[in-house]
């Protein structure tokens, strides 16, 4: 995974978080280095900032598409206008994430794109005794299929992709309901969904892997 972001500490955070999720990350901090890496190596996914010292991330994206590299590209940008988003996606980006974002959100977007583009033949994610078939949105625990609501499914996917990570209530709310909900100080309503999800997993004989982390949020503990 190539991470192109000129802000040193943001780049480090992404590398740290994603490396912990077993991705092999390579950070670059400017246009010239990014161009060299793109020309010299193949990556599964490129995280791309738009405003870079020495050039624009969009130029890199155009170059990638010109030389027909199959890399998945996620743009991370502070430019939140609709035109920028549309322009980025039309140029060939697979996703567009507006700064600032939660690392867990970045992680779940990467996972979705990789499933779609790279592991297209194998859309199944396995975490402990949970198996998610993302093509049919089917979840089974210990081989028993369980029926989940859309929100529960999204929640489970978010946990599975960010397994063994503490997820703050804020990041869960933003992932499931969008960032318009952020004025809400009391996030109790996500508790209901999590409670139901845990019940269903346990009812199918699964291991109760979602833990509450006091004061912060939740964590899925998978060996």
């Amino acid at each position, binding site marked *: 995974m190539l991470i192109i972001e000129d802000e040193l500490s943001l780049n480090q*955070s992404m590398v740290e978080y994603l490396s912990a999720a077993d991705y092999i990350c390579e950070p670059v901090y400017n246009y010239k280095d990014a161009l060299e890496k793109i020309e010299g190596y193949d990556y599964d996914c490129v995280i791309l900032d738009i405003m870079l010292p020495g050039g624009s991330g969009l130029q890199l994206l155009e170059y990638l598409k010109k030389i027909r590299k199959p890399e998945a590209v996620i743009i991370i940008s502070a430019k939140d*206008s609709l035109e920028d988003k549309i322009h980025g996606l039309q140029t060939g980006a697979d996703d567009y994430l507006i700064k*600032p974002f939660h690392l867990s959100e970045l992680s779940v977007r990467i996972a979705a794109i990789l499933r779609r583009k790279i592991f297209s033949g194998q859309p199944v994610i396995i975490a402990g005794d949970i198996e998610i078939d993302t093509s049919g949105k089917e979840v089974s625990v210990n081989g028993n299929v369980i029926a989940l609501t859309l929100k529960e499914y999204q929640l489970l996917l978010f946990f599975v992709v960010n397994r063994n*990570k503490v997820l703050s209530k804020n990041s869960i709310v933003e992932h499931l309901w969008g960032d318009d909900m952020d004025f809400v100080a009391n996030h109790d309503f996500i508790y209901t969904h999590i409670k139901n999800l845990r019940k269903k997993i346990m009812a199918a004989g699964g291991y109760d892997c979602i833990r509450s982390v006091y004061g*912060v949020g939740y964590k899925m503990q998978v060996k």
Partner: protein
Amino acid sequence: MKLFTKYNRVNIIATIATFLVGSVAFYCELYYILGRQLDATLRSEQQEITEYVQSHNQLPEFESTRQQWITAVRSTNPLAKRKICRKSVIDKVDGDRDWIRQLIFSIKVNGQYYDVTVNKSEVETEDLLKLIIMVTVGMIGLILLVNYLINRKLINRLWQPFYNTIDRIKNYRVAVEKPLQLPKEKIDEIALLNDSLNQMTLHVFRDYQALKSFTENASHEMQTPLAVIRSKIEVLLQNDELNEQGIQQLLAIENAARKLSRLHQSLLLLTKLENRQFVPNEQVNMQQVIALKVEEWQDLILSRKLLLNIECEDVVVSFHHHLAEILINNLLSNALRYTPAGGSIFIKLRGPYLQVSNTASLDSLDAEKVFQRFYKTQSAAEEGTGLGLAIIKEICSLAGFDVNYTFEDHKHIFTIYFRQ
């Protein structure tokens, strides 16, 4: 009043005044000249009579016509000088009162004085004068009429490029168009106008672009450090050794950073709205937007045990999709924030208006200030950015909608009237 009308009015009044003064002067002049001519005829008549008397020593036979007649009477008191005067007499033929000119002089024939009166009618002169005046007045009228018609046609044509230019300016929007490229015109003034406007819109366009990229870059520059703060906190939260106090402080930092980022996004949106960077020219089905947003907020509404009443008609307005979502979102989040647990929210969408109301936990808000930026009530349980309603107001102003706030039946009511 149109420039042409104004010009024409002044022009016509001045022309008529000039012609009137001119006509009076012309009349007086003509009258004077014709009178002198008449007097000259009378004098030459006197001359002829005098010469005749000198050579024949008797008075000539006087021939009388309708225009001229001469009488001679014996005089005991001869005039020292000849006398010319004007008199009115009754015409013997038609009985009209006519003006005549009279010359009286005394002459001595065979030692006897006679007073000879030469009368000449002014009727001919008057007729001539009348004819000349009529022709003149006719000419003046004709000249005025022709002048008016020419001006009207010509000036309308001359001003046409001006109106074309005005039409282009009226419809010009710096947010959506390139600088104006008005055509070159042959008339200097219009060419100057067009050139200046081309120049001006070019400058405005460049300044606008600079401002636009500045606000975007400023946003970028601010969001990046905020993204750093948030990502660092997220990484820190993974640390198992953190105690509760540490976690709480980290979360407080995260909340502040998020609020700052949110605040900045809102301000940026307001700037864009003020710059008219959105064009409300899409057909937006408000019912669908509301349904979508209500769906998104459903969990929160349920968890707070709020009662939601929706009465929606199928309403399509000329608007902007993204702005419609923001509008509904802000209205709803506002209602949610100020509704006490167990309260109700009402959404009513009719052809001409959208009304969102909620049961209030407090008294009426200040209707004057409610749409001002950073207006906050004393006891909002969950503080927003203080910009939500200001954004609603700006969006409405951009789309040409009206928005107002009222307080009735212990309910906050926000009503948006769509453009008809």
